[in-house]
């Protein structure tokens, strides 16, 4: 009888411990997923602002349609990748593809800003200025969202790998999460080159 009680108590304590670990992992996983959705929200906001910016700019720079088309195309690609990645944030290949598209869009926007420098009348336009301020702040937010995502991923991965929660993580299939980074070296280099050309 006594042994049964002791064993029962032990099982209960152990079970409670495992449940605690499991819940902790779930919490961390949700945190990083939520952090990803924050990036998603801010990226979406950015992609919505860009067409407005392009439309407003078109009135001033007739001859630069190539730059504008490049921005629009990069934006559309990035938007598609974003939708795909948002549907399944744990798939690291999708996240990587989005990061690549983002980098491409970044370089297109860089070129756009350079061209804009040549048109002082654009900078004087109030609505253009508002849009540009808005875009700058949104870009900051994207940066902070990515940082928060990295922090959350780090916490989740640490929790996943630490003993004893790694046992729970292995049993219940908590897969590792990926950082929002460009892994393709080639991609990074093209970003640099395009800036050099623009300058």
């Amino acid at each position, binding site marked *: 009888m006594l042994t049964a009680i002791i064993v029962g108590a032990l099982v209960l304590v152990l079970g409670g411990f495992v449940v605690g670990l499991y819940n902790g992992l779930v919490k961390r996983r949700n*945190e990083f997923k939520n952090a990803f959705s924050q990036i998603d929200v801010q990226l979406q906001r950015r992609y919505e602002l860009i067409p407005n910016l392009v439309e407003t700019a078109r009135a001033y720079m007739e001859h630069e349609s190539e730059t504008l088309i490049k921005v629009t195309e990069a934006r559309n690609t990035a938007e598609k990748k974003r939708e795909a990645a948002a549907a399944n944030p744990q798939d690291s290949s999708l996240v990587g593809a989005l990061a690549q598209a983002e980098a491409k869009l970044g370089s297109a926007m860089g070129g756009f800003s350079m061209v804009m420098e040549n048109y002082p009348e654009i900078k004087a336009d109030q609505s253009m200025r508002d849009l540009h301020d808005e875009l700058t*702040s949104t870009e900051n*937010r994207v940066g902070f969202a990515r940082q*928060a995502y990295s*922090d959350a991923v780090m916490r989740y991965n640490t929790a996943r790998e630490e003993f004893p929660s790694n046992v729970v993580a292995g049993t219940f299939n908590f897969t590792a999460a990926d950082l929002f980074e460009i892994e393709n070296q080639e991609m990074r280099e093209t970003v640099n080159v395009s800036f050099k050309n623009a300058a």
Partner: protein
Amino acid sequence: MYFFGKQRSSKASSHVFLFGFVVAMIMFMLVAHVAVNAFSLLLGYTDSMYVSSPQAKAIVAIIWFAVIAGSYFRYLDVRKGGSALARRFGATMASDKGRFPDENRLHNVVSEMAIAASCPRPEIYILTNEHTINAFVVGSKEEDRAIVVSQGALDRLDREELQAVVGHEFGHIAHGDIPINMRLLILLGGLLAIDEIGQLYTGKDWRRDWHIGYLLGLPLRLLGSVGVLTANLIRAAFSRQREFLADASAVQYSRNPLAMASALAKVRDQNDDEPMQSRHSGELAHLCFQVGSVQTWFSRFFSSHPAIQKRIDEIDPHFATKERALQRREAPKAEGVSLAWQQPVTRESGATRGALPDSVALMVNDTPSCLAVLFAVFASDAPGKREDYYNAIGFAYTPLLSAQVKHVVTSLSADLDEHRTSIISYATDRLRKEVLLENRQKLMKNLERLLVVEGEFDLINYAIAQLIRRQLDVEFLVIDQLAEKEGELATQTNVKTFDSMGAEFALLLSLMIEASGAPSEKLEEYYSGALRCYTKVKHPRRSGSEPGIYKELEKAFQTLYVQPQNIRDAFVQHCVEIMHQDGHVARAEDSVIGLFAASLDCNLVAA
């Protein structure tokens, strides 16, 4: 700053204090019970400590009632939503986006930090009539929270510093400090109520005549006051740890420790009498960005915030130096001080680092002559002493070397003065290639012993000897050992804070200033001026003629050598500025700066 580690450690110690607070509360109630029982035993109402008399029960009931009622009223008070509380503190809601540039900036900063901290965005309020730099958060419920920023913070901080301050508040939110603070306040409210009930019995005026109410009122007041005092002490200790935690979190969110430190420095330098003159500041203190500077050791125990300087040191122990570097970059030639070194710098003859004259190159062409040149550098100007020096060399080495040294000194004396540095580097270059390390070590040892024996070991000769030692690649023994542990070298973990190395820097500074050849009555003034750039602590000026100064100097170099490269560079750079300040580089100055740069492993050109 490794902010994740800092967060972990301050979180852990704050939990200890939190636990202590709860234990203290339980102890307090136990003591109250025992005291009441003992009292009734003393008065003869009961026979045993363990059996309460009806009177004792009544008193205990009063105490419990007071605690519960007090807590409840406080609960009603703090339960209100964030916006309501913010308004009660006199804050007004920030206007819509895009209306005023500074409020627009605040909107953006708060949104960005909310994302970085993964928190919902709180309402934004501004304390328009508060002109100190401050901010706090209120509202226990996640959906109704407000961040309140003082107008002073908006006016005085730049965007990055504002971001740091807002990040600090988000640190409080993210670590759940608002509910913890609320619960502590509720418990404190209970203790305070005991005191207040005691006051009902005694009356507010202490000088009134004795009456029966004192019998019950005084013990109650005593009990309440002691309880409140202890609870406040623990709460303050807890709160100080949470401030470090929030600071570390702010750095995590903004990834910008320098902005955090410079915001704190602005608070430190604002010199206002009393921040947050609101009548509720006591309750709020825990969640504020700062509570002003605390002077006495006594009040430091009760302060909810650590001293500002301590917070800056936690974030970046070398902020003072970096701040100076920043200021120099921003306003290089604005003030009258810099006028002195805008003048073209003229070097005294003997300090040129130019090319080697042909006569030297011809004469110093083999290993023995290189060796002789090194000894020749130290030959005294006085003929008698010079003769002793030759003899000593002959005694220690060979008469041949002694003769060679003599020859070098007589034929090259002008060049030795004029091109000392380049001659040394030429000779050491050769010796380094051609002589074994062991023999070079022996050479250095003998050279130094010779100088000590001959009484020629003044600061300048010491500096030259160290320069030779460095160029011969004969490292200081201790520094060798330090350099072996390369991983530990100059990492943030073993970096001392600036003030703890103040004495070492002060020593180097005073030697530097002494070497400048300024009139002796001016030395003190220059020295204190230079020291002020680094620290507020007053270190006495040292002099190169003090006995045992070299030993201290070597110790100082060891301490400073393990500091991060940029700190050492900044210091040497400052010494170069001092050197150029009078528009004239004295020979002694040149040697001393060479010594500093070599001993601190800084490149003079880079610095």
